[in-house]
């Protein structure tokens, strides 16, 4: 019994120390600021929320978002808007550190694109296991949308 308590106590100490040390998780999810202030802040940590308030921006436009660096490489997304809707997304300036990341891009980017087109900026989910890429993708889109509306 004493042994079990010792082990449990030590485990709790180790657990607490790692959680305390790295406590607030590094920005795991993407919380994109909405283009219009009416967007509710999502409750989930890593749900990417983009909002395109139809009508506030141009009906038809194209913009390239900023180049986003993430741990495996960098990318920028070109956003095509037609009739107040996002109709196309293209990854530009993709650079990856290694062959693995390139493969991961090929696997992840089409999924992200489908998500954004379907969600039309209401809510897109980051891809589990490809958080950093999802983040970079979403940030770049946000950047592009910001350009269209506020500049």
């Amino acid at each position, binding site marked *: 019994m004493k042994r079990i308590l010792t*082990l449990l106590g030590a485990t709790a100490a*180790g*657990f607490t120390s790692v959680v305390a040390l790295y406590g607030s998780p590094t920005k795991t999810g993407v919380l994109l600021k909405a283009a219009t202030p009416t967007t509710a802040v999502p409750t989930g940590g890593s749900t990417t929320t983009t909002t395109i308030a139809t009508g506030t921006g141009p009906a038809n436009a194209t913009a390239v978002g900023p180049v986003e660096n993430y741990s495996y490489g960098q990318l920028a997304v070109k956003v095509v808007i037609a009739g107040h809707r996002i109709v196309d997304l293209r990854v530009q300036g993709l650079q990856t550190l290694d062959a693995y990341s390139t493969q991961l891009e090929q696997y992840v980017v089409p999924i992200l694109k489908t998500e954004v087109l379907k969600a039309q900026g209401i809510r897109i989910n980051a891809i589990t296991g490809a958080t950093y890429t999802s983040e970079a993708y979403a940030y770049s889109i946000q950047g592009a949308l910001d350009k269209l509306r506020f500049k």
Partner: protein
Amino acid sequence: MDSLTFYPRESTSGPRSRELETRTSSARRPNAASFYAVLVVAGIGLGLVLGLPLVDGTWSEVHLQGGLAMFLGSTSGLAGTYAALLMVVMASRAPALERTLGQDGVLLWHRRLAPWTIGLIAAHAVLLTVAYAQSAKQGVWAEVGVLLRTFPNMVTATVALGIMVLIGLASIRAVRTRMPRERWWLLHLLMYAALILAFAHEVVLGPSFVRHPVVRIAWTVAWLLAAALMLTYRVGVPVYRTRRHRLRVVDVVAEGRDVVSVILEGRELDRLAIAGGQFCEWRFLTPRMWWQAHPFTVSGLPQPPYLRLTVKGVGDFTRELANIPVGTRVALEGPYGAFTVHAQRRRNAVLIAGGVGVTAVRSLLEDLPLKSRPIVVLRAASEDELFLADEVEELVRHRKGVTHRLVGNRDEVPMASIARLIPDLAKRDVFISGSSHFVRAGAAMAREAGVPAHAVHQEVYAL
């Protein structure tokens, strides 16, 4: 005194005078504090590992598609691999650890942890495949192909998983007992290959390690330390000691039915820090036998330049040993074992030996002080299975103790009858050596007689 020397029959070098006093050995007394220190270190490590998925982003994605499976899979992978790390550390048989947990303790923990290690790692593989399949919205089987093709180091990791599962299946008692010990041991060695193969995918893909250089370095260092312990104590030290002592067989003496003593001659045996009751892993360097190591008890403290081990012939190997040529070189690993006078907690001791267990009792007796009044019980199924008994009696007589010889099968001489022989049993340390069945029964008898657990010491001979 003559019955206590084990010089080879045709020795030309006369026996050097030898004291029967207790000699010093490096096998120091284990203490409770060090046991708790081991528990605390192991516990903190487990806590750190379990905390990682909470802070590396895996937890915050738990509500996403595949997020829960991803979180559980990450956690089980980390926990399982951490258990594997502990198992490697234990398998290194670092002397400090052996003293703290005891040879039996290390083996026991190794066996207790093994199913968790393999189970958690297998769960990790299944859960993460499901997680990625859910995340990519495709079938689990299709995802297996994607994972193997797309992700780096996944092919080696899958091979490693296969090896681990295979070893896990082979370790199931029903399978293991049907396999020759040597083959099982070789299969077991593959685990190290599996752990090395799996390492790359951990640090390249694990969300706890990618982008967390501190964690990655700590993990790598922990594994390097475990590997260093392993290489030092399982390879380096044995090679060093083997070269230093240059042991070779000088005589093989029949002691009784199926029992032989092998007498070895070597250099600098006074520098071999062995305590009575300990054993070594021995390799007889013949073309047929060199690759297998066998645990045989040193049945008497070294009498430089000689050392004696006594073996009961049960397997093919031990029968073959009776015909080993004189001059054969011998490699040793050890000494191991906590069945020594250093484990003693009380003033007086009773030593109970079943069959071949007498070998450990014989050498342990030498470490007991004079006038320590030991009680020794030698138990055997028949008279010709009672060996080394004369030596034991003489050592006991020197220490003003009593020897009981009990011959007969289990029904004729039940364990309870031993308790009746020793009126002050509850006040003594109890050392029991023999087959696992014998030791279990003896320990139960001692506990019933009121001997506390910390004063019961066991040495199990796997037959």
